[in-house]
């Protein structure tokens, strides 16, 4: 399983790619997509929505079930990845390209792990 070094991770299986101190893209990890199976829909927030670290900000639907996606950061949605609406399979095929939202004005984060920490965490599951 692939966990890129430059990303940060949460226990709820989201990844965060910081672009600067207060801006980051968020998605779900390779482990998450593997557990969820074929993904067919992402219900995303809208530009300008507030997101709060530790709270649900999106959900993803696999063929079988719906799962919440938890925001790793507190901030404001600057951009939504519309490509996921047309091509939800991208979340399975390339989970680290399939960003959900870009969040700006980040003021807080959930507990974040490095790639190595996350890899060891996943081992225990």
């Amino acid at each position: 399983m692939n966990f890129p070094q430059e990303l940060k991770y949460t226990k709820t299986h989201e990844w965060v790619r910081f672009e600067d101190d207060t801006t980051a893209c968020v998605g779900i990890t390779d482990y998450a997509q593997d557990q969820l199976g074929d993904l067919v829909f992402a219900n995303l927030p809208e530009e300008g929505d507030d997101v709060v670290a530790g709270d649900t900000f999106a959900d993803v639907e696999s063929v079988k079930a719906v799962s919440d996606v938890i925001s790793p950061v507190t901030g404001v949605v600057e951009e939504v990845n519309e490509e996921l609406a047309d091509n939800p399979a991208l979340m399975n095929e390339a989970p680290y390209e399939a960003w959900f939202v870009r969040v700006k004005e980040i003021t807080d984060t959930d507990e974040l792990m490095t790639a190595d920490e996350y890899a060891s965490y996943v081992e225990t599951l």
Partner: protein
Amino acid sequence: MEASVEGRKTPLYEEHLRCAGKMVEFGGYILPVQYPTGVIKEHMAVRTACGLFDVSHMGEVLVQGPDALRNLNHLLTNEYGGMKDGKARYSPMCMENGGTVDDLIVYKVHDDDYFVVVNAANKDKDFAWMSEHCFGDCTMTDVSASYGQIALQGPAAEKILLKLAKEEDIPKGYYSALFDRMVGGIKCMVSRTGYTGEDGFEFYMAAEEAPALWRMLLEAGEPEGLIPCGLGARDTLRLEASMPLYGHELSEEISPIAAGLGNFVKTAKEEFIGKEALARELSNEGGRKRVGLKVTGKGIIREHQEVMVGEKLVGMTTSGTHCPYLGYPIAMAMLDQEFTPIGTQVEAVVRGRRVAAEVVKLPFYHR
């Protein structure tokens, strides 16, 4: 991970582990929800090539004796007179109030000898119900534990089966079966039936022979694109083909009339359990009816979601998913009759959000 899944193993349990199936509990059994290929590829394999399913969890009951036919006609809403040997016939089994105990398939082996296949989750309840109502010179025997069952489904099914069986051992007509035939050297009942909306076969064999037949079918089918398929694809396939699933479209609260299965309720029969209630329901225009919904908005509608027209609650969904072959999400729902015409625009409440849908003709998919 497997250790945490509780339930009975089917005779093919070890085969699923060999194929890296993701095991879950279903109807008291441990079965694969999918293999590493995933639900979408498994679904598409059945629509375009072939898929192999373990359906050993299904229950089998023998109904035998000079009064076997009279018992079936008393227990079941469909008519079992006039059946030829080797034919299969679907029926709901109802209570006096018209609610559904289960839905099942009866095979006529020959006069006085019938083979009944029931849903896994209901089999103890069904067997108790059938035994309780048994009369005259008739025996009912639960033989579920001694049978394995494998389904081979898809347009390539017959071509694959021809590699392992003689042409005369393959039933020609849909809903017909041949008994005590050899498939790959294993004695089977071969039935041309399924739960996917495709052509295909179901094999019943002694439980201990199931793994060998499973492996032979996988090998014979591989060049034709056959892959093993799990419960996930079984559910999306049956839903796309608009087949009812007990516990969803049928239940002790949902009669076969409400579920749109009136064709299988023969009120012309002299008597059967539930006849009065079902006949009354047929002549009465009220109540909810099963419809198909095509999602026109954004999102996926699942089971047990409220269906609204404006601010009026008009029904509930019974099943729903994204359909891999059709390429859009669909659902089945029970709606108040005035909202059942094709083209009616409705909304389902999905986690507090409204998702638009339209009433469409069933089945969603027809081969």
